[in-house]
């Protein structure tokens, strides 16, 4: 079992941490893998439950369309696995489409049931159509790990957005209306932007968020 032991000194947490990236055939895994390695973590890319059970934090990446991504997760048996890991309070971070998959359902192309880990639905951006480029994220004051990223500028590339209870919305952006760009329920966090492509701002956010999620695991 390689997962972190309790009561490790903080400076050892980073060096011993292993991040797992779920491989379900969706998009560019290399960027996230290299980013996490640059932050000092060991990284495993896998769809094998045994491998994913051994990591300290699970990442759900994603580029592409919602229905195809959910289909791939179902085919690999990862839907029930991820729901169970969330119930067990294991740290999970979903990125871009990976964040949207955490929600209950999506209206992209057709109505598709999601992982249903964070209540809410994924709907069209509406008249603004796209959210492409760099935008500011305002974080909730209660989110200590995100405090140093409040007002930070991150890279977005999506055309659907999260709509759900405000209690799960911990980061907001203007596009031009207010949209949720970070969502959270317990140990599960969704980031609508790409921290791995957001230069220093993205890495600072990831580092602090991972540390908080795993140190309280």
């Amino acid at each position, binding site marked *: 079992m390689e997962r972190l032991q309790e009561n490790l000194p903080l400076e050892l947490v980073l060096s011993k941490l292993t991040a797992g990236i779920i491989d379900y055939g969706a998009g*560019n895994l*290399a960027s996230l893998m290299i*980013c996490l390695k640059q932050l000092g973590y060991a990284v495993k890319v896998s769809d094998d439950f045994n491998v994913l059970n051994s990591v300290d934090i699970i990442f759900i990446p994603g580029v592409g369309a919602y229905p195809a991504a959910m289909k791939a997760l179902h085919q690999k048996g990862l839907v029930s696995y991820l729901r169970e890991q969330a119930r067990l309070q294991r740290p999970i971070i979903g990125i871009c489409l990976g964040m949207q998959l955490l929600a209950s359902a999506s209206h992209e192309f057709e109505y598709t049931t999601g992982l249903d880990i964070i209540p809410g639905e994924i709907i069209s951006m509406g008249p603004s159509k*796209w959210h492409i480029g760099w935008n500011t994220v305002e974080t909730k004051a209660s989110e200590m790990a995100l405090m140093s990223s409040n007002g930070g500028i991150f890279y977005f590339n999506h055309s659907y957005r999260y709509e759900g209870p405000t209690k799960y919305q911990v980061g907001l952006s203007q596009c031009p209306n207010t949209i949720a760009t970070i969502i959270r329920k317990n140990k599960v966090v969704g980031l609508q932007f790409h921290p791995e492509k957001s230069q220093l701002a993205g890495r600072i956010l990831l580092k602090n968020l991972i540390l908080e999620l795993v140190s309280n695991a």
Partner: protein
Amino acid sequence: MLKKRIIGVITVRNGLAVQSFGYQKYLPIGKPECLVENFDRWGADEILIQVIDRSPNLLGPDFELMEKLGKLGIQTPLIYSGGIRSVDDGVRLVQLGSDRIAIDALLHDNLPEVTSLSKILGAQAIIASMPISLVRGLPMWFDYRSKNLKKISIDVIGLIESDVISELVVTDWIHEGMTVGYDQGLVEIFELKKTAIIAFGGISTPKQMKSLLQNRKVSAIAVGNFLSYKEHALQVFKEALGGMPIRGPVYQSSISELVD
């Protein structure tokens, strides 16, 4: 609010990054990966790699180059353009590390395939790229393979406005690489309701940049040759663009900033 972007453009020919002048003269400047690393370090908002000898020679995308770039671990979004023929090409490029792809020759050859690409990768990942010039006030579309000009068909305009692509690169190919500046008439002729324009070609001074960035139709400007003439050119341009709705200059992109 969403910022407008400055995109660093790297033109690749015969495996080398080149300075390109009016789509007809090329000066080699080095390895593409070195320029990518520079633009990443200088805080470009996106980096566009356009490999210009793939489609004319029916070579398909330069997967080898994309794989090399994907392994650099850069922190800036990458757009790949050049030789894309099919959905499989687009998917493979994304898997190798491209965040978005730009389509040029495929717009001439196979519009249904562009639509299929969009369904798989999402329209936000698809950019249309069109070299345009004004002839007697009319927009003419340049096919860089045959070197011919043609009218833009209703089908192509329909596709651009149909949520299949997210942005349109309008290239002033005649002024590309030259200091005379981008012909803003090219932006004005497009009355697009849904699709924002990325302006590229001959954008060389902060004054030209400001003028384009103030245009509501323009979401980004793309700059190629003029980022290669001096170190940290991106930060210098961004400094000079104070007051514009852009992300400010970035001076700390080093991972060492994260070490406690």
